[in-house]
Every structure is written in structure tokens, then in C-alpha cells.
């Protein structure tokens, strides 16, 4: 168990060892973003702009124009909303090599309540031309994807969890930005998830297996650009899809998959996510259950699709 934000802190330490172009621009939450060690070990590659995310985004843009690879280190609500227009105009429009490292994606800052739970960020970031949107499902995935993002052309939005999530992938698992992973196949329904919701989807798969139902399970760690080939491979067989995300149903993974399915006349879809509402404080498991995003809700969605 580890929070994927820890993976960010460790990944940038490893990156900076071999590459003086790697910068971390913190916004007064370096303890939370796990970049304290980075600041100590690489002071010449670290900047802390204070509680000023808009400025931080601009400083990253400037660093990128002179050949660096800066990571803006903050929470998802701030990078995607407080600094949204700076990200759009100073980073995406000139397609600068800035990485937005954002913890507290989704409901995982469970006790913090809705102010700190980013449930719109993926929708916002997906809409920005040239932006890549990535979230690893566990520590190893998040770390590998962070490293891959550093050398991926252009702006990348990296979403992490505040809270610990189970380990799933081995430390030598290879991840490629833009490529999902088909973890189970041969099922009658395709379940697509990203980020830590993969673990709920895996638990749902086990529940269903107990009932003799197999599913296709995809870890879509890159939400944009979507791995169309993988979707096609699974959905052409199943024609039924459940998307699972710790995000609003509007504009995130469910929308991305649904847009593709509709345009390609491909089957039926049920979206699991927040149904146009804010979160609240509470234990993460309680929140997932309350908002109909837990393993039972996922299993129910699969059962519903199998009925007709």
C-alpha cells in the first residue's frame, strides 16, 4: 500500500539524478507532494513560489522555454481550476514541455472534503488541445508513468491519490503513455477504469467470477489520448461497457469512452462516477459506497448489462 503521490516524489528524485533539466516548482505543499527530499537534494532544480499556483504555472512555462522539464507540484483542484487559464494559454497553446503533477485527484483526500477533492479536473484537462492526461493505478504504475511523462513531448497532466492504494503492478512493469492494459479478457462485458479505481474494478471482477461471470478489464492509465486500439479489441467482442472512475461522470473517462462508442456504433455503456454532485468528508470506502462507485455498484452495472 502506498499513495501514488509518493511515487511522484520518488520518480522526480530518480529523474533529477541524471537530468539537470528536471525541475520541481512547488506551491507551499511540498511536504504533501512528497518533494521535500527533492528540494534538499536538488536545490538548483527546485523552486517554491508559495501559495500562488497561477504564477507557478507561468514560471514552469518560462523554465520550459529555456530547455527545462518542469513539474508543477500542487493539488489537482488548483492546477486544473485555479491555474486553468495559465495552463491553457501559457503552457498548452505554445505546447511547452511542462508536467502538471497533481495529487488529491478524485475523492481520495477523503477526510478533506469537497474543496480538495478534484472531480472535474480530468474533464477540464481533456478539453485542452495538446494536453495528455495520465493516472497510474498504484505506486509502481504512477512512478513509471511519471518517468515516461518527463520524456513525452508536450504538456502532461499527472493525477495522483492522496491516500494509500493497494499495490498491483510489479516494479518492473513497463508502461507507455497512450497505451492501456487489458488485464482480463474473454468476458462478456468490458470494464474500463483508470487510477486507483482499478482496485475496485478488480474486486468487482472477483465478485462476478464467484458468480461464474468473466469480464474484460482494462486499465486505461492514459485517458487522453485514449487507447482506441485496445478499446476496439475488447468492445468489438463484448459490445457492453462499464467505465469506472473517481471523477464526475461528466467529461472524464466515461465521456471519452462513450464518445468513441457512440461514434462507432458500438454497444451499450454504463458510467460509474460522481453523478453531477460534490463529494464530502468521510472514509474513502464509505464515500465510494455512498456515491455508488464501490465494487458492488460496479458488479451491479455489469449484471445489468448482461440482462439484455
Amino acid at each position, binding site marked *: 500500500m502506498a499513495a501514488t503521490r509518493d511515487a511522484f516524489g520518488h520518480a522526480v528524485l530518480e529523474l533529477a539524478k541524471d537530468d*539537470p533539466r528536471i*525541475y520541481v516548482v512547488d506551491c507551499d505543499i511540498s511536504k504533501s507532494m512528497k518533494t521535500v527530499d527533492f528540494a534538499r537534494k536538488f536545490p*538548483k*532544480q527546485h*523552486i517554491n*513560489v*508559495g501559495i*500562488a499556483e*497561477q*504564477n*507557478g*504555472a*507561468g*514560471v*514552469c*512555462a*518560462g*523554465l*520550459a*522555454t*529555456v*530547455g*527545462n522539464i*518542469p513539474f508543477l507540484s500542487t493539488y489537482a483542484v488548483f492546477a486544473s481550476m485555479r491555474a486553468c*487559464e*495559465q495552463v491553457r*494559454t*501559457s503552457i498548452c*497553446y*505554445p*505546447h511547452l514541455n511542462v508536467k502538471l503533477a497533481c495529487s488529491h485527484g478524485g475523492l481520495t483526500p477523503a477526510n478533506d472534503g469537497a474543496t480538495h477533492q478534484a472531480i472535474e479536473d480530468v474533464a477540464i484537462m481533456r478539453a485542452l488541445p495538446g494536453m495528455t492526461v495520465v493516472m497510474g493505478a498504484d505506486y509502481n504504475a504512477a512512478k513509471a508513468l511519471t518517468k515516461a511523462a518527463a520524456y513525452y513531448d508536450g504538456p502532461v497532466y499527472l493525477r495522483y491519490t492522496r491516500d494509500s492504494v493497494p499495490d498491483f503492478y510489479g516494479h518492473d512493469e513497463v508502461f507507455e503513455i497512450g497505451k492501456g492494459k487489458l488485464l482480463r479478457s474473454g468476458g462478456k462485458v468490458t470494464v474500463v477504469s483508470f487510477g486507483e479505481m482499478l482496485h475496485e474494478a478488480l474486486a468487482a471482477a472477483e465478485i462476478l467470477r464467484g458468480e461464474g461471470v468473466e469480464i474484460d478489464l482494462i486499465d486505461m492509465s492514459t485517458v487522453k489520448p485514449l487507447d482506441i486500439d485496445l478499446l476496439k479489441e475488447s468492445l468489438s467482442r463484448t459490445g457492453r461497457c462499464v467505465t469506472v472512475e473517481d471523477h464526475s461522470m461528466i467529461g472524464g473517462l466515461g465521456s471519452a469512452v462513450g464518445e468513441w462508442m457512440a461514434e462507432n456504433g458500438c454497444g451499450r455503456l454504463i458510467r460509474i462516477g460522481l453523478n453531477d454532485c460534490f463529494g464530502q468528508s468521510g472514509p474513502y470506502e464509505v464515500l465510494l459506497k455512498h456515491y455508488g462507485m464501490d465494487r458492488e455498484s460496479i458488479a451491479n452495472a455489469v449484471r445489468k448489462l448482461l440482462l439484455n
Partner: protein
Amino acid sequence: MRQRVANVEKMARIIRQEAIKMIYKAQSGHPGGSLSEADILACLYFDQMNVRPEDPHWDERDRFVLSKGHACPGLYASLALRGFFGMEQLNTLRQFGSILQGHPVMQKVPGLDMTTGSLGQGLSVACGMAIGLRRRGNDARVYTLLGDGECDEGQVWEAAMTASKYGLGNLCAIVDHNGLQNDSTTCVIQPQENIAERFECFGWRVTRIDGHDAWQILNALDEAKRHPGQPTLILARTVKGKGVSYMENVVAWHGTAPNEAQFEIAMQELEG
């Protein structure tokens, strides 16, 4: 010095003429700020800045961020006159497929160091450039030009704190203090009469000058280089629409193109 002053005065006159020609041809654009900034741009591109038009991405070059991106006709004219691209491009301002977008785009325009147009963002970018350059031992300088109305934006002051915190002596910001903004005078919309004092409070070295006096501009820019540990703010008092009598100090000429008769008058006055 006299030679330098004469040279930039000549270039400023041409920048003004070209900016007005572009805006007239496009029947769209921002003449007021393009005229108020012309002397400053002439001093930067024809005296101060170390650039290579034949190698626009040369790593050692000084950088310039036009934070008040809407005033790009003046900058486009400066870059073309400096030789970054052909003068004939100036006729394409704001047209479909042109490298000269309504607000400047760095990938399209040779010699342009940053995409701008949304006010308040340039000083942060300039800070990032200045930190990045200095930390790898690159002696290039970073210049940025802001509007006084633009200083309404909170991000300007966030960036001012960063520049001061990191002692960015390789950064020089200039405020084109013409006293007018889109809706009215700055005094009516959001008073900006204490910009200098505010930057001083934020830890900057501040110089107050007449932004149409080339001698003063050059002196201020020369002096800024002698303070490696502190960013410099040059508060340049200017006249919006400078050089075209009917545009001077008139709010309406912020973002309006002249008609044919007005264009003729403007060109006559700018020939002087």
C-alpha cells in the same frame, strides 16, 4: 550615446509607421499601446538585446516577453525590422494562415520568445526564464513589457514576489504606464498611480523615466545590468497613441483601426 539615441529614435519612428500600416491594412488591432511602447521596443531590439536574426533560437540570446500581447503590432514591426522575417509579412497581420496572429504565438513568429495575449501571465514566464537561464550559467538577460492596466491582475504581484525572492538581477520588467485601459483611464477603472512604490515594497529596484525619451530609456536599461542580485522595474511614463495627434490619450484608440482618412493623417504625422 548620442549616436545610440539617434538610432533608436529613428527606429521607433519606423516601428510606429509600420504598426499603424499593419493595423490599417488588417482593419483590426491595437494602435494605442503599439504607439506608446514603440520607443521602448526600439531601445530593446536596436540597442540592448543580444539576438541573432539568422539564428532565432540561439541559446545565448536575450529574451523578451511582451506580456501586454495585444500590442504585438509594435513587436512584429520590431522583429521584422531587426531581420527575423521579411517586411512583407507585416501585411498579413490577423489574416487567415498568417504567422502574425492577433496575439503573438512563439511557434509561428521567428524571434518571438513567448506566446502571450492573456494579460497578467508574462512576468511569471519571464521569472521562469530568468531562473532557468541563471541556474545553468547562461548570462542572457530577460526583458518583459507590461501594461499599467495589466497590473490589475493578481498574478503580476505573485510573480513580482518570486522575482524578488530569487534576486533575479537578470530580469528587467518595464511597465508601459500610459494611464489608459480598455474601458477608461486607469484612474477610473483601477488606479495605478503607485506602481513604482508597490514594486519597491515587493523588493524591486525601481527607476522612473519618460518612456518616450530614448536617452532615459537607454540609461535605465544600461543601469539595470549593474545590479545582478535584484530585479529592475522601469516605470516608463508614456502617452497612449503617442505620435498620432488624434489618438493620443484617447481611450477609444485602444483597439480600433483607423479609416482611410485617419490613416493618411497618421502617416503624415509619423513621417515628421
